[in-house]
């Protein structure tokens, strides 16, 4: 097997901003003293006049972004997911969500794959929080190709968007000439008839791997990548659930309110189906290398396989 290319989606984010800067002259990028880590530093280097460092004041940054958007700019406001969705929740809700302003939030360093920094910085609640804001589009791309496509789609869309990017390098699984990205549309990565696995972010690649292991055991799993948690591709979720009769969600997020929550809401109302939500089970993360933590929390291919096997 040839070496799979790996890249962190935060890196994809920084690169996409640079690639799209000329096409979208209204694009400006805000950061809160984390440009090196969020990778907007790549944009800062290429377009210093369009990069504004707000310093360590995330609430202010979100409201500044609102003011920029209210006067015709398209700001990407960047910081760690913990501070974007957590600390600045009320600014995002009232300064951006309520007036439905054209602000894009690029939140990096989400989930336990933040690694050694530990629980204070490992946001496991951001997707749940952002999903509650009316009119907010919430995305969690799986790889370099999808992350870049999501940034473009966000720029082309008029309204508030939250995109979650990761710190750890992840394999590139999307691509090809026929690759298409659309906000609100999921993609079937593997067709199957026995069970549906719905994943997002860095859990997509190991979910595909887990499906291959299940195939060896005689379980034919369908794997769906849901980048847009809101609006959820209900049509795709429901069609697959009806086909397989059993659904598993996999995410590097609390099992409360994120992808698992969104799918549970959809299924229980429209097509009650046996469901297992794989994720972080109502607890905080901890320090350690990302790969070790993903293994410990059973979010690597082996852990996902084990959890699905116990359910299926």
């Amino acid at each position, binding site marked *: 097997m040839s070496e799979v290319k790996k890249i962190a989606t935060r890196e994809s984010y920084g690169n996409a901003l640079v690639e799209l800067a000329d096409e979208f002259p209204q694009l400006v990028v805000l950061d809160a003293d984390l440009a090196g880590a969020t990778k907007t530093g790549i944009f800062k280097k290429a377009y210093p006049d369009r990069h504004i460092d707000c310093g360590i*004041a995330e609430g202010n940054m979100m409201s500044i972004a609102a*003011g920029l958007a209210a*006067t015709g*700019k398209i700001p990407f406001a960047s910081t760690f997911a913990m501070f974007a969705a957590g600390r600045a929740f009320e600014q995002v809700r*009232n300064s951006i969500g309520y007036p439905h302003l054209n602000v894009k939030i690029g939140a990096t360093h989400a989930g336990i794959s933040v690694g050694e920094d530990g629980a204070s910085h490992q946001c496991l609640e951001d997707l749940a929080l952002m999903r509650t804001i009316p009119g907010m589009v919430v995305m969690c791309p799986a790889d370099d190709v999808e992350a870049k496509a999501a940034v473009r789609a966000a720029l082309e869309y008029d309204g508030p968007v939250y995109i979650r990017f990761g710190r750890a390098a992840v394999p590139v699984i999307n691509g090809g000439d026929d690759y298409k990205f659309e906000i609100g549309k999921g993609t079937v990565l593997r067709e199957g008839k026995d069970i549906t696995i719905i994943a997002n972010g860095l859990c997509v690649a190991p979910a595909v791997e887990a499906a291959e292991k299940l195939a060896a055991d005689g379980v034919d799993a369908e794997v769906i990548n849901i980048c847009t948690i809101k609006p959820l591709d209900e049509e795709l979720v429901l069609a697959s659930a009806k086909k397989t009769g059993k659904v598993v969600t996999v995410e590097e997020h609390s099992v409360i309110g994120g992808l698992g929550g969104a799918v549970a809401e959809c299924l229980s109302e429209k097509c009650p189906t046996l469901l297992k939500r794989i994720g972080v089970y109502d607890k905080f993360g901890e320090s350690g290398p990302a790969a070790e933590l993903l293994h410990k929390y059973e979010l690597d291919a082996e852990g996902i396989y084990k959890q699905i096997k116990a359910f299926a």
Partner: protein
Amino acid sequence: MDTKELQKHANSVRKGIVTEVHSAKSGHPGGALSAADLYTYLYMVEMNVDPADPKKADRDRFVLSKGHTCPGLYAAMAERGFFEKKELETFRHTGARLQGHPSMHYLPGVDMSSGSLGQGVSVATGMALSAKLSGESWRVYTLLGDGELQEGQVWEASMFAAAKKLDNLCVIVDNNNLQIDGTVEEVNSPYPIDEKFKAFGFHVIQIDGHDFDQIAKAFDEAKQTKGQPTAIIAKTTKGKGVSFMENQVGWHGVAPNDQQYAQAMDELTKAGEAL
């Protein structure tokens, strides 16, 4: 516009405020009345706005950071001709454009939705930055309460505005000295307000917020000030213009009953006739 004319407009704005809050049976008359002269000057003289074209690109922007005092904003907008004064009676009613706190989507001419204290000044700062980035010459005004200065975000925004040299930003503090739980000193003193803004890098002007000559001079001085934002600290009286509301903390967020409304309107009518 001469002082007498401005005072007449301000008197009309005050009547509008009292009418709104009475018709809503709720709302915040005290801090709207204290800022009535400021609202009047901003909408009748200072700001480049056009009621016939509320979204014109080069207009000056106004963000009401102390959003709960929007009865004053709405009354001043009606005075300027953005909508009929009759609509003031729909304030806070279901389906009304005059929401309990300003919403830019309900009412054309409102440049930003606000209400959560501390955020408006940041949004105004973002707008001022936006004008600078595009090389545009319109200005941004934002009105804050003195109690609002207790919000940390006010100082995050102030540090940023001064650091970025946003001289197109004018922050106005309605210093009526009262907030819901008492005087601002009793609750959590923001004083000295002038020294704080100076330390953050603002050009600071202190005025009597009910004196139109001082108001006019302050706004002119703000426009002349280059390289730094301006903070106008306007000393005012909460509830100004209605005898029983003046300097009474209890009138922060309470509507007058029918009898109190009649008395307030009678006082304001007499004051208007005396001008």
